[in-house]
């Protein structure tokens, strides 16, 4: 803990120094402009001059503080996250810098993959003997705009940020099924053109409240009704009420993929400017772990009653 605090302080101090240097540069630029004598000119140049000084300064600060922040982050994950994960899960493999590969998510063919993909906090483990994988995932889309002078600027807009979880599913199904909560905008599936058995049809289930909240698509209606029982619908409604963010459930190749778009980056340390509160940090990590376990518990994924040969 002391070592972790030392790393936090090192990162904090480096950041403070950088902020000080950048602020000093900014003030110096303002003073220099004021000394020029022409007050109007100095105010007119200020919006141009300040970014010229501040932007490279901030970029340099980011680069200079990156290593100590990374060291602190890695130590935090090792001390808090890994320890907490080990206390809940078995057969654990935790790789903070790795994530679920792009190809795995793209292979579901149920998600718009945007233009830039990043994934981290890879967890592969077992809970109640159910095997699962999870990662934080960030997907961005490239947006280009051209001003009146013909200058093109490119920016990346977040289209998905949250968790992606993959669970072994306890029912055997032939066709793929997708449940999309209304408001989850990056869901995709093939509905037109192609082999009939691979196309998705919209399925209306018998629960009006469920149909109002979720849209269901399936390659085969029977499998949708087989997977989504009335009890399962109620549990999904409960999970949606309990979780912030929008969700998508994809049943693909005997696995259940769950995406939660909540704009959160989980298993991260707090600000370097705040001293670590061990109890609070542990509680936060536990709550983030519960996001995984709640799906296994609530959806009874550990119930292997329907899987032959188990």
């Amino acid at each position, binding site marked *: 803990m002391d070592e972790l605090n030392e790393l936090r302080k090192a990162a904090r101090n480096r950041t403070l120094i950088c902020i000080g240097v950048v602020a000093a540069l900014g003030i110096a630029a303002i003073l220099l402009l004021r000394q020029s004598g022409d007050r109007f000119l100095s105010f007119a140049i200020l919006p141009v001059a300040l970014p010229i000084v501040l932007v490279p300064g901030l970029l340099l600060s980011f680069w200079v503080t990156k290593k100590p922040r990374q060291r602190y982050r890695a130590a935090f994950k090792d001390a808090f996250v890994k320890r907490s994960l080990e206390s809940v899960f078995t057969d654990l493999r935790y790789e903070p810098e790795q994530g679920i590969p792009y190809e795995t998510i793209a292979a579901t063919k149920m998600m718009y993959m945007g233009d830039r993909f990043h994934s981290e906090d890879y967890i592969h483990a077992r809970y109640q003997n159910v095997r699962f994988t999870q990662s934080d995932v960030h997907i961005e889309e490239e947006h280009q705009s051209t001003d009146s002078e013909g200058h093109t600027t490119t920016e990346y807009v977040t289209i998905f940020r949250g968790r992606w979880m993959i669970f072994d599913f306890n*029912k*055997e199904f032939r066709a793929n099924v997708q449940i999309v909560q209304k408001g989850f905008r990056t869901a995709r599936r093939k509905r037109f053109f192609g082999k009939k058995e691979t196309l998705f049809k919209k399925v*209306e*289930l*018998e629960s009006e409240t469920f149909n109002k909240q979720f849209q269901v698509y399936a390659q085969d*209606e*029977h*499998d949708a*009704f*087989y997977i989504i*029982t*009335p009890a399962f619908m109620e549990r999904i409604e409960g999970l949606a009420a309990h979780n912030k963010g929008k969700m998508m459930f994809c049943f693909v190749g005997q696995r259940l993929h769950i995406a939660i778009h909540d704009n959160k980056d989980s298993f991260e340390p707090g600000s370097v400017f705040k001293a670590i509160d061990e109890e609070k940090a542990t509680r936060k990590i536990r709550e983030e772990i519960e996001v995984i376990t709640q799906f296994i518990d609530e959806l009874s994924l550990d119930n292997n*009653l*329907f*899987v*032959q*040969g*188990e």
Partner: protein
Amino acid sequence: MNPVLIVIIVAVVFLAGCVISISNRLNKARVKIDEAGSDIDVSLTKRYDVLTKMVDVVKSYAKYEKETLFQTIQLRQGMTMREKNEANRLMGESFERIHALAENYPELKASANYNTLQKAIADVEEHLQASRRLYNANVSRYNQLLVTFPTSVIAGMKGMTREEFFSAEETKRQDVKMDLDF
């Protein structure tokens, strides 16, 4: 051209379009019921297959006649929903009888075959439930179309009538004898 005639032609074309569209909607709803009905047949067959396997396993432990374990059940193509309900009910009774019997034979209950079949039963029951819900959802939608205007008018012209739901009705017809002929 006379404007009144144009209005009449447009109205007739519009009406014909509406009638065709409603008629197609009703036909699609009818086809979906038939498809879901076939789905029930598949699930019932699966349930029957597991039941016969179960009977064979039970017979190897307890020297019971096949007929005492389950009444002869006939599954054939083109069964009405009432007949399907009846066959399903008989299968349910047979399963209950086998479970009750297994309680008296610990070796049977502990056997790997019996346990594998128990899982298979749970799975086929889930598939049957799925088929039943899918069928009933389609029947409900179809029946609603038959009573809502303007589809009710076209349905009446086509002679379409309400469809029966698939449910495990308690019809006390113990004397039903059926032969396997699928």
